[in-house]
């Protein structure tokens, strides 16, 4: 039934109707009517951030860890432009966000009014869809349509730009029926083509060197998709690898798990991708960090690709069996059809393949030389992982971007989906701390840890203040190498070790910084003291900034250098990475 209310009230009512309990935002002139409407209710709880980029990453962490859309509210002009990085991040990693931006009154649009910017113009290419609301009559439909678009098909960020006069205007609020929304031009295909799925199963039944290559799409398809992936892996007996975004969909503790693939993936995963005869890509998109050199990518395999986004099919790699559909639905069908054909996994037929895989595993590509004088970053993550396993709490990990991110992916192991949040597609330094705050908002009793680098964490450090304000006990575990380690590594690899601006000349005292924010600071630089320091961090009931001083010049290995195929991966015992890439490879990076 329609009800009369202002535009600002409609925003809050629509959020309530969508079941949105938390939004992340920052007020400003153009957004005040919405803030006023929010003040007069208590269903929707607002988390006041310190920078709008923080709000977007919090919403991403919230969304990724719950499967629900993350909601952001910012003001016009600088509020909207500050949100752009997070929107782009969400677009690249397919995270459902609804971002409400306030706009100057309609009559002032285009006049270069105070705090005016062309929000829909600026965000057009970094959102799945966006709207400028020009009339109060359109507002209820747009609000609900935005949620539909953000959460269905391939998820992504949606912006609703609402001018201040529309927030004040009075109109009829209604909640449209889902079927009446965008049925004409927006119809994501969720059911995979049956004939294509049968062809895929035929190929899988004949495979001798198969591999499942899974991605973030499995996580986006919901927890059942992860369950079904496990079941299909068990039915078939095939090895499973995953992209950075897909970690946790398949349990790292399962013997069929090969570790992550790609530029810093394990030797066994990359070699198996290169040598396989049937590749079953489920919800991954052949990103360039995965494929390496396209013309040398898995040269002899028949490729099956399941993706909900038709534009992802044949975009980078030509596949033999494309299946457009929701990963979960397709996995269900695959299981059903596989079962109708056979009751046994292909253990015997692929025994040789597993023998080969074991040889690759024996190389120990994640090994590193430990030290008893200096903390090795990989070891610090292993110790953190062991310590968290003893906790009764649910554990969520976020990361910043750099070497520490890759080490976290390699050495922290995930057995469940939605417990690993990282900026994969955009690689946004500054993602991890606010994302951790967002996760903690959604899971107040969980243990939420941001595995950070000292450079990245300074990009959104101010959100520690948000964590303190809302008593969110996030733990920021900084692997402090006093370097932009990943940049330094590439400079060693490609630029004759000329370290142009890749080190931190003046770092804050992180312990004092934590204390200044009202959080706890811990510092550790001795291997023998690390376990106790980690325990102190985990025991503290409040936000902690933990400064772990680690080996400064450790390289993140294994690594597939640019210009090289998967089987020319650099392994950890390589002494000098600077000699590995030839002239041609240097140009390609």
């Amino acid at each position, binding site marked *: 039934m329609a009800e009369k209310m202002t535009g600002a009230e409609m925003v809050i009512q629509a959020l309530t109707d969508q079941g949105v309990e938390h939004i992340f935002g920052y007020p400003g002139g153009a957004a005040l009517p919405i803030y006023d409407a929010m003040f007069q209710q208590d269903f929707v709880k607002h988390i006041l951030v310190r920078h709008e980029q923080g709000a977007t990453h919090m919403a991403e962490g919230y969304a990724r860890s719950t499967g629900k859309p993350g909601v952001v509210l910012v003001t016009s002009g600088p509020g909207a432009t500050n949100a752009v990085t997070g929107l782009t991040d969400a677009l690249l990693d397919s995270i459902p966000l609804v971002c409400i931006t306030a706009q100057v009154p309609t009559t002032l649009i285009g006049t270069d009014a105070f705090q005016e910017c062309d929000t829909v113009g600026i965000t*057009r290419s970094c959102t799945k869809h966006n709207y400028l609301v020009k009339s109060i009559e359109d507002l209820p439909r747009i609000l609900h349509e935005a949620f539909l678009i953000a959460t269905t098909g391939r998820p992504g960020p949606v912006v609703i730009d609402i001018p201040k006069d529309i927030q004040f205007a009075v109109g009829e609020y209604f909640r449209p029926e889902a079927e009446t929304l965008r049925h004409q031009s927006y119809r994501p295909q969720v059911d995979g083509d049956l004939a294509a799925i049968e062809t895929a199963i035929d190929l899988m039944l004949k495979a001798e060197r198969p591999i499942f290559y899974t991605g973030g799409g499995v996580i986006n398809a919901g927890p059942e998709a992860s369950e079904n992936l496990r079941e299909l892996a068990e039915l078939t007996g095939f090895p499973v690898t995953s992209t950075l975004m897909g970690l946790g969909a398949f349990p790292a503790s399962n013997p069929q798990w090969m570790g992550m693939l790609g530029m810093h993936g394990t030797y066994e995963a990359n070699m198996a991708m290169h040598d396989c005869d049937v590749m079953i890509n489920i919800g991954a998109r052949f990103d360039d960090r995965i494929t390496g050199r396209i013309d040398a990518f898995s040269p002899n395999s028949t490729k099956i690709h399941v993706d909900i986004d038709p534009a992802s099919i*044949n975009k980078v790699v030509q596949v033999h069996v494309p299946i457009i559909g929701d990963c979960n639905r397709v996995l269900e069908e695959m299981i059903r059809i596989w079962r109708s054909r056979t009751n046994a996994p292909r253990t015997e037929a692929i025994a040789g393949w597993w023998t080969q895989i074991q040889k690759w595993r024996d190389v120990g590509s994640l090994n590193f030389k430990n030290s008893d004088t200096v903390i090795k970053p990989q070891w610090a993550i292993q110790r953190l992982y062991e310590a968290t396993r003893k906790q009764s709490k649910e554990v969520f990990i976020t990361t910043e971007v750099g070497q520490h991110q890759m080490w976290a992916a390699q050495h922290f192991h995930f057995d469940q989906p939605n417990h690993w949040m990282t900026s994969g597609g955009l690689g946004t330094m500054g993602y991890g701390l606010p994302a951790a705050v967002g996760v903690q908002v959604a899971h107040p009793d969980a243990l939420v840890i941001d595995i950070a680098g000292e450079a990245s964490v300074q990009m959104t450090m101010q959100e520690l203040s948000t964590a303190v304000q809302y008593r969110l006990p996030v733990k920021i575990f900084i692997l402090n190498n006093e370097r932009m380690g990943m940049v330094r590594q590439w400079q060693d690899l490609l630029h004759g070790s000329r370290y142009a601006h890749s080190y931190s000349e003046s770092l804050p005292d992180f312990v004092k910084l934590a204390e200044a924010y009202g959080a706890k600071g811990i510092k550790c630089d001795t291997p023998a003291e690390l376990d106790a320091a980690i325990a102190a961090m985990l025991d503290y009931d409040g936000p902690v900034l933990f400064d772990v001083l680690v080996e400064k010049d450790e390289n993140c290995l294994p690594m597939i250098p640019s210009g090289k195929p998967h089987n020319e991966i650099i392994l950890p015992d390589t002494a000098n990475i600077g000699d590995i890439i030839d002239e041609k490879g240097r140009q390609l990076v």
Partner: protein
Amino acid sequence: MNAHLQPTGSAYFLTQETQLSERHTLSVLVDNEPGILARVVGLFSARGFNIESLTVSETEHDKRLSRITVVVIATPKVLVQIKAQLERLVPVHRVHDLTAEGAYLERELALIKVNGTGDHRAETLRLADAFRAQIVDATVESFVFEVTGKPSKIDSFIALMQPLGLVEVVRTGLAAINRGPEGM
């Protein structure tokens, strides 16, 4: 030679393009809502696709639908991407690759201004007649012709007018429709 003194190829793994480019005419049915053209054009520029010709107008007023006819030159692989990316835009209903889907008609309209006196004027009129160009404006020293037809016909007419006093040309861009009883 120092690697850093060489032109950096690109940030990523580039492979040589082996497919040949083709010219294709796409017909795109969209909601006629604000910003739709910016979305379509923005998609082309963001993804590095080239537009040869673009024509837009509302075609079904009650349903607020517009038809965009866009001509692109791209490899078969990129053409598939263009179509998929266009279909991904929320207000896009359907995309048809007319060139790939069978026989279709293409028409364009041009207004062409030619100045001339004496013999040139007579020759201009004779050619205009041969091309069925309509005179839509005339003064003692100038004509404006309206020509419709395939782009190639308009190209030829313009080439012929060049030495006879061609002043300027405006063209609508292509309108295209498939042959036969089937609608889009």
